[in-house]
């Protein structure tokens, strides 16, 4: 996995975009190993599909070569190392992977697993939680997507832009 990311440091943006897509796909594989097929499915279709296509289209509109950075990335490196170290420090007290006694598996989730077959009667628990127990989050999610649609329409709406260019000489 880590190697996939190393390659993402390529100077060529085109290959970087493709590698990022592959990274998403590998991430999706990992997710399905961890028993979340729903998420893996989505990650594969979004990360490796839609996002990559959009990035490629953008590249075709702009340029596909990245210039040499002007400054040495020392400060960012320090920030990253500190943040990473803090996170690793935080993991020390974290529950171990897959341990069924974790708080996560004891507190709220059991109701979803044990009761939803009677309350909702939908075999796919992810769907049950997504659409019913936490249906309001999903409504929010739909609104986010809707916002993105509106946003891109505002940014790239065809009719407006020609006027923008026409009006430029006034300024």
């Amino acid at each position: 996995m880590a190697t996939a990311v190393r390659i993402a440091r390529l100077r060529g943006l085109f290959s970087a975009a493709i590698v990022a897509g592959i990274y998403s796909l590998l991430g999706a594989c990992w997710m399905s190993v961890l028993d979340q097929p729903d998420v893996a499915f989505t990650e594969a279709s979004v990360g490796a599909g839609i996002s990559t296509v959009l990035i490629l289209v953008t590249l075709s509109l702009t340029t596909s070569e990245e210039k040499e950075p002007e400054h040495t990335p020392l400060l960012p490196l320090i920030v990253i190392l500190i943040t990473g170290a803090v996170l690793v420090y935080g993991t020390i007290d974290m529950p171990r992977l897959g341990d069924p006694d974790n708080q996560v598996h004891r507190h709220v989730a059991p109701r979803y697993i044990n009761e939803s077959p009677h309350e909702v009667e939908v075999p796919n628990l992810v769907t049950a939680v997504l659409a019913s127990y936490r249906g309001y989050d999903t409504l929010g999610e739909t609104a986010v997507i809707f916002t993105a649609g509106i946003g891109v329409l505002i940014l790239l709406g065809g009719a407006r832009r020609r006027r923008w260019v026409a009006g430029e000489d006034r300024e």
Partner: protein
Amino acid sequence: MKRQSIPRVAAKLLIPYILLYAFYVQWHGDYGPGGGFQAGVIFAAGVILYAIVFDLRACQRALSPRIIHLLMPLGLLLYIGVGVAAMLKGGTFLNYSVLEHDPVHGQHLGILLVELGVGTTVAGVMISIFYSFGETVRS
């Protein structure tokens, strides 16, 4: 890619199945992995494939931006509508149990409609975003 016959034939063969698969994922989300969001993305992917292989203009003739712009708000409205219907029937917002006499049936109905709403909006937005980018490439 307009003049290359291999992608064209392959796409012609594939696209109907991609769209069909989207509907399968949409309605089958209760039983297997999948649901409205994934279905919307797959549907949009089918349309985008069509636009890439053939031509954006041809694609927009088949599926005009006007319809797409209708789909976006309609999905969200359907979702909110289900919630409001539950409110009118005496439950709290989005409580599907009150939609039918049997709470479990109500849940099924609610989830089905809500997923349809998500799928509609997602497909609409994804296609609309692609159209916007595509039109920018063309001009």
